[in-house]
């Protein structure tokens, strides 16, 4: 009898002996490999990989192994990580960046507006900067809807303090109180964390001007200069080199514009893509939060020579 072999392609059928790369077995990770794995070798390989993972630094790529530990926020992974919190930080890494820098006589916050369509109704309300109380403002990076909830919470917390003590809430206490709220979402309730990082800028009479950065885990720190959002690591490294203590507000605004122009993805800076705000003391001694108008921003951009594409910044 004749056997009929119907060849659909011109290349020969792979065989285990001849074509090791195209003849694949299912592996313990769920992917494919060239060797057949027995139960014993499966367990062994799992152990080796777990060891390797705990030695690796935090990276954005997560292997299939960890999928079973990231569906709930309220449990640790075997390596001691909270995956949901890290995924939240991933989300923020894709959002518009924001930078905050401390000056001798104030704090400057600058943000990159991601949504710039001609159709967008640019009313007086801001996208990146929000006032929390008369003496505290914040810049936001991440999921806007999550940010709105937290901003409202912060505002109410500040007012509750003022109602109780009849004086403005110290900046660190406000940041801590908000971060306690964020931490709750990483420990109980089974709800996902907030996908927002904040930069808080404020003044109080005990500690003067302060800048704080907080992230979805509920961690916060006081900074002289900080960046959140897209390209924040690049911004932080530039800030580390160029930041000077006791700079004036104008020098700090210049630094902020330069750093943002270098780290922003777009080729040129215009006032529509930015929001700039300052927290400072008026001569009479009261705290002012001032958001620059587009006209004032354009003037500043021209003055510091950053309206051209990033390659030509002075």
């Amino acid at each position: 009898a004749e056997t009929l072999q119907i060849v659909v392609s011109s290349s020969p059928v792979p065989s285990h002996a001849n074509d090791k790369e195209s003849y694949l077995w299912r592996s313990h990770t769920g992917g494919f490999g060239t060797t057949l794995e027995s139960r014993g070798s499966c367990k062994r390989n799992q152990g080796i990989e777990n060891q390797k993972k705990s030695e690796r630094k935090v990276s954005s790529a997560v292997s299939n192994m960890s999928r079973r530990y990231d569906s709930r926020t309220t449990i640790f992974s075997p390596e001691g990580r909270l995956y949901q919190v890290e995924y939240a930080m991933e989300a923020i890494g894709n959002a518009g960046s924001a930078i905050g820098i401390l000056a001798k006589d104030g704090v400057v916050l600058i943000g990159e507006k991601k949504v710039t369509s001609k159709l967008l109704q640019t009313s007086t309300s801001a996208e990146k900067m929000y006032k929390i109380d008369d003496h505290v403002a914040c810049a936001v990076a991440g999921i806007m809807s999550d940010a709105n909830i937290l901003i409202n919470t912060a505002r109410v917390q500040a007012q509750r303090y003022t109602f109780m003590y009849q004086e403005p809430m110290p900046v660190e206490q406000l940041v801590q109180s908000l971060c306690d709220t964020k931490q709750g979402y990483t420990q109980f309730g089974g709800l996902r964390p907030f996908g927002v990082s904040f930069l808080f800028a404020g003044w109080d009479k005990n500690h003067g001007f302060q800048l704080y950065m907080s992230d979805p885990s509920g961690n916060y720190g006081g900074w002289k200069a900080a960046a959140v959002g897209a390209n924040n690591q690049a911004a932080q490294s530039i800030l580390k080199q160029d930041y000077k203590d006791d700079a004036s507000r104008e020098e700090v605004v210049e630094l902020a514009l330069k750093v943002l122009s270098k780290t922003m993805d777009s080729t040129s800076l215009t006032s529509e893509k930015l929001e700039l705000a300052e927290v400072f003391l008026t001569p009479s001694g009261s705290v002012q939060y001032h958001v620059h108008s587009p006209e004032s921003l354009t003037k500043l951009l021209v003055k510091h020579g950053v309206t051209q594409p990033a390659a030509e910044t002075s």
Partner: protein
Amino acid sequence: MAMQIFEYNGSAVVAMVGKNCFAIASDRRLGVQLQTIATDFQRISKIHDRVFIGLSGLATDVQTLYQRLVFRHKLYQLREERDMKPETFASLVSAILYEKRFGPYLCQPVIAGLGEDDKPFICTMDSIGAKELAKDFVVSGTASESLYGACEAMYKPDMEAEELFETISQALLSSVDRDCLSGWGGHVYVVTPTEIKERILKGRMD
């Protein structure tokens, strides 16, 4: 001596409407029944540049209610990015008072402000939030009956700021002189679209 809770501290507050302006005035005495404790007690407070509230009645509720209103107004300002209109503010006060319907704040507020187009607005309410809008003047406090009489007699519509100040001051001082629980001077705010003038009156210091 029977204790009347609304007469415990003593107070007099009055507000009047003028031509594109308003005036709000109060006495300055804080007493504990017959004893005078302070002669500089503040009963009128600014909510924002165009809305003032004067609270008569029990002094502790005057202070606490004012602090609660500042809380609510600050949040309103942050969320809506504008100041509250006086009519809106009056509704807020009324709602807050009614929340405590069965254990009320023992105050009677007098609200005065400049609304849209600089039109002056005044109103008063009882301690559980019943609003009373008026076109000419509103009064509140232990001296309210005398104040009604004095204002009715002295009030004219469409007075300018200076004349309004004279009128409200005379009405206040003559009324508190007939009331032993209020007095010790007066505190008058005259508010026009361009400025807020605050004055202290010296009357019979008793």
